[in-house]
């Protein structure tokens, strides 16, 4: 009877220690996994913030270029009108000049 008690006590003690160790190990593995997930999330957030900044900058540049293009189109239109008038005047001068 004493032998069975000792054996049972040892088995119970061993099981307790092994299970405590196993669950500690599981907890540490889980913690490492969560930490790496958090790191990845932080990196993703950084990348996203960087992308937002870059898009804002590019949109600002696009607006500037659009304004520049609009001004340029206005100037081109004015120059076209001027050229038309100049050509018309030139033709008139050619016609009226004595040879």
């Amino acid at each position, binding site marked *: 009877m004493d*032998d*069975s*008690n000792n*054996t*049972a*006590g040892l*088995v*119970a003690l061993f*099981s*307790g220690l092994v*299970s405590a160790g196993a*669950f500690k190990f*599981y*907890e540490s593995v*889980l*913690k490492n996994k*969560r930490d790496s997930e958090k790191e990845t999330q932080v990196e993703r957030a950084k990348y996203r913030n960087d992308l937002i900044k870059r898009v804002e900058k590019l949109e600002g540049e696009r607006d500037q270029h659009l304004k520049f293009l609009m001004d340029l189109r206005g100037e081109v239109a004015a120059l076209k009108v001027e050229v038309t008038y100049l050509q018309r005047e030139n033709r008139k001068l050619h016609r009226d000049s004595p040879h």
Partner: protein
Amino acid sequence: MQIREYLRTYRDIFVYHDYQPLLLFWNIADLANNRVLWMSYSEAIDNGMEWAYFQYCLYFVVALGMLFTLPWLESCVKFVGAYLLLYIFSTTRFLVKVATDPEFAANPDIGRSLVVTGVYFTLWVWIYTKMRVELAHRRVDG
């Protein structure tokens, strides 16, 4: 395919379903079934069951602890762990007795007892594992 689905539902029950209602009913049944409530210490001495009575007392205290700490996982898991250790202790004693005492091993009820003990052991390991895993997740996730 249908049999596969059917078996998968059992696996899902095993993996995803909660243990608390089972633990609650088991505790109530275990406390009500405990010999400490139905037998005095002097009766146990008369029947040569001093050691068993002491063991039943331990089971009773641990089951009470489980019952009253059920809403607090961190405390309850300690009592479940203690219950499991007690269970391992008594089961190992039983197995050693089966292995060393041929007269005891010749009892026709031994096979049935071994099967029931195995099922109960699996049940307690399942409950304890689920609780520890839940506790680990709570600790890690804050």
